[in-house]
């Protein structure tokens, strides 16, 4: 048996070096054909990962049809004015490249991956798909049915149902994070037309706030040339607004049960609108506090409700949906029906202790090294680094933020952490959502 010299280890923990000896120094950020381009060459061989966004998410959908933004995003890979979806897919498949689009509350995000030699192809197709989707009636009709099917399938998932109800309860309907009911979305889906989609695309798609991040074995000069060639002459688009702060809803039922038969695991969400954005001064202290309560196996919730009491497979706390707007704070847990009440009681006990007594200096210091270390590890892949760079852009930070993150963590004090808990959370007013075969709701 070998013994580990932990004191020596602990003394080194706060000296974690930034991963890439300066991402800001390594990355090249330029504007090419009105596109904000950030390229970062890493040691990975032959792989290039793309990540990017433009503000055309669901919150930009017109008041009279909330499905339009999602539908436009869904049509991006259904063919362009010059080639159909099968021809595009064949070109990508032939070289094993991937390119996909997703629509969020605020942003349309695209992800691409290819080998180094295929960067020109992927950049060219990306530009073509963003600039000139075909919007064919036939594909539009298929897409509506596909989305309807996916939504209906999602209704089987307890986690989806709980999350949807939570967002619909804590956010007012005009908030970007508000989740309309599936029925409401399906009704909008039915009435949307191709003309609606074309109008939305014309207004919101353009390089005004288009970011493209490329990470990996990338030839930066070659990349710029391809972007110049593919995006030249494209104008328009919108910049995302500075969303106004909203007041959390208080009129909704704060204890909701969604009964679903044959679901032996119940998904639980307990939380509130946080009123905080990622960039707010209190956000990082509250993030540290939340990590102490509910992150990983040593977080208080997992250490007690799972490890000591065996009441759940997974329980955690997180703060989120706060990149562009004020977000939310939630505990997420799974419980068997016969352990639901006991699980909730234990959860509330830990929450109460955390809220009333605060966290300790030792916990804060441990969490700082945890967050700094996991941040470092997360940058070790092209996906992780590209995602972090795009997040920095979304937060409105310069790329030096990535390198300075450990220092920012270290600067947070115990007092700031405990103060943020009390200032921004009110457990007595938390919303509780339970989805699954909840015993008391079965009758």
């Amino acid at each position: 048996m070998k013994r580990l010299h932990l004191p020596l280890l602990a003394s080194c923990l706060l000296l974690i070096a930034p991963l890439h000896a300066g991402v800001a120094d390594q990355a090249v950020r330029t504007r090419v054909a009105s596109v904000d381009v950030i390229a970062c060459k890493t040691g990975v061989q032959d792989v290039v990962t793309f990540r990017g966004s433009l503000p055309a998410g669901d919150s930009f959908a017109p008041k009279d049809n909330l499905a339009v933004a999602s539908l436009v995003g869904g049509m991006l890979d259904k063919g362009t004015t010059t080639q159909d979806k099968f021809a595009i897919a064949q070109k990508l498949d032939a070289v094993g490249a991937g390119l996909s689009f997703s629509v969020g509350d605020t942003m349309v995000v695209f992800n691409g991956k290819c080998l180094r030699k295929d960067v020109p192809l992927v950049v060219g197709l990306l530009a073509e798909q963003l600039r000139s989707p075909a919007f064919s009636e036939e594909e539009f009709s298929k897409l509506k049915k596909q989305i309807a099917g996916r939504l209906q399938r999602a209704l089987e998932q307890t986690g989806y149902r709980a999350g949807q109800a939570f967002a619909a309860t804590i956010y007012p309907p005009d908030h970007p994070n508000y989740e309309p009911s599936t029925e409401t979305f399906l009704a909008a889906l039915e009435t949307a037309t191709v003309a609606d989609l074309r109008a939305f695309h014309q207004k919101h798609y353009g390089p005004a706030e288009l970011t493209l991040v490329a990470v990996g074995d990338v030839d930066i000069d070659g990349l710029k040339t391809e972007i110049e060639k593919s995006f030249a002459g494209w104008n328009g688009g919108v910049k995302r607004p500075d969303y106004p702060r909203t007041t959390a809803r208080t009129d909704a039922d704060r204890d909701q049960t969604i009964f679903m038969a044959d679901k032996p695991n119940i998904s639980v969400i307990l939380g509130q609108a946080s009123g905080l954005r990622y960039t707010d001064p209190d956000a990082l202290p509250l993030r540290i506090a939340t990590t102490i309560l509910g992150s990983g196996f040593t977080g208080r919730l997992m250490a007690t409700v799972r490890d000591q009491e065996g009441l759940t497979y997974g329980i955690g706390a997180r703060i989120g949906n706060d990149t562009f707007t004020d977000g939310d704070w939630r505990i997420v847990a799974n419980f068997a029906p016969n352990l639901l009440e006991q699980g909730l009681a234990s959860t509330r006990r830990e929450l109460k202790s955390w809220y009333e007594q605060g966290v300790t200096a030792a916990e804060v210091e441990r969490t700082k090294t945890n967050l700094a270390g996991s941040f470092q590890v997360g940058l070790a892949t092209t996906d992780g680094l590209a995602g972090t760079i795009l997040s920095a852009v979304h937060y409105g930070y310069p790329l030096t933020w990535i390198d300075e993150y450990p220092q920012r963590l270290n600067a947070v004090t115990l007092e700031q952490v405990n103060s943020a808990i009390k200032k921004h959370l009110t457990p007595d007013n938390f919303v509780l959502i339970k989805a699954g075969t909840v015993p008391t709701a079965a009758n």
Partner: protein
Amino acid sequence: MNLIRLFLCALTVSAFTLHAADTPPPVAPVIVDGFTYVKTLGGISEYTLNANGLQVLVLPEHSAPVATFMVTYRVGSRNEVTGTTGATHLLEHLMFKGTPNFNREKGNSVDQLLERVGAQYNATTWLDRTNYYANLGKDHLEAYIAIESDRMRNLWLRESDRRPEMTVVRNEFEIGENNPIQALDKEINAAAFVAHPYHHSTIGWRSDIENVSIEKLKEFYDTFYWPDNATVTIIGDIQPANALALVKEYYGAIPKSPEPIPQLYTEEPAQSGPRRVVVKRAGQLGVVGIAYKTPAARHPDMPALQVLGTILTSGKNSRLYRALTDKNLTTSASADVGFFHDPSLTTIYASLAPGASHEEVEKITLAELDRVKKDGVSDIEVASAISQLIASSAYARDGAFAVASTLNEYISSGDWTLYTTLDDAIKQVTPDDVKRVANTYLGEDHSTTGWFVPIRTPEATE
């Protein structure tokens, strides 16, 4: 099913992502006292720790100052029998309960150490193996090796830990039961295998999870957790000689198993007719699953089967996308080509779209398979599938942890060198090969078909 200690990540790992791409530059093996050098392939060098037979794989990868350390035990749910199903996985959970040297009370448990340094870590159990890993800053590598090696033989296995962990695992089982496809997958495997232990899923049967004794779990641990039944993999920003020295320091004193590691000898008898199962539960939309017996990962037909799986379901030009999803009959269709130590299943799952019937989707799926068997596939389809598979290999080398995760499945298949050689074999696949394997393996008499039939029930909201 690939079970992990925290949250179920995926029903299966797609076999399509488990390849390396072009061979990295050769790395000269190092000479370290106490090790026997075995071979180097694809930049990965294999050594044996002479003291106890521990297999060690080393791959320097300097793109970031992180390292991944993983130990893979060659024990999975295939080593379980009636009454102990799920034991491998439950034991994996108990491996985090501590040892006399490293435990929560002392403040130096594996969780405490690894979370303090922000490591990405966990453990997973699957049919053929159990692995424990951490991806962490390279400066913390030694600390993790110390704990990982210690728990190989010194684990606390206490009833007081089993009781609460049993309910944790039971909740993991319940989470899986929430998912119609997982529920169907269990039934298909249980029908397809009558003798071989791939019959039961890795999570095990509920009653076994609840009742397996701590004594049985200890017996399991004492049978399989030995250095000569394990592979250590170290990838990342490391110097091979230093890494091997650490392995020797921390594993060198552990003896090899006092008894030969038991080898599974049960073979699945030949299937002589189609089998069917139906799962009826509350739900929204149906699922059709069609499974065929296909050979072990090391079989020479595996590359052609992977190309076939890609042609059938990968991308918009795949056969089943065009025949089903593009016609709004399914919301998705996928093919999981089983990549395991023993012969397993290749399963096609078609998730029904609203209004589609099981009969119609099954009929069209079978017609597409018949078309491949009768008419074969085109050169373009094969070339495209090969490109996708080879590119996936390159993507699966993105960082030390990605490489380790991929390598883990090859280790458990019985031949880690597939990490490199499978790509070469895939590049050689021809349309004739694809047609031949389709005819060899996708026969009705070797099939097990399952339907998930949703029962619409009224919902209550309060």
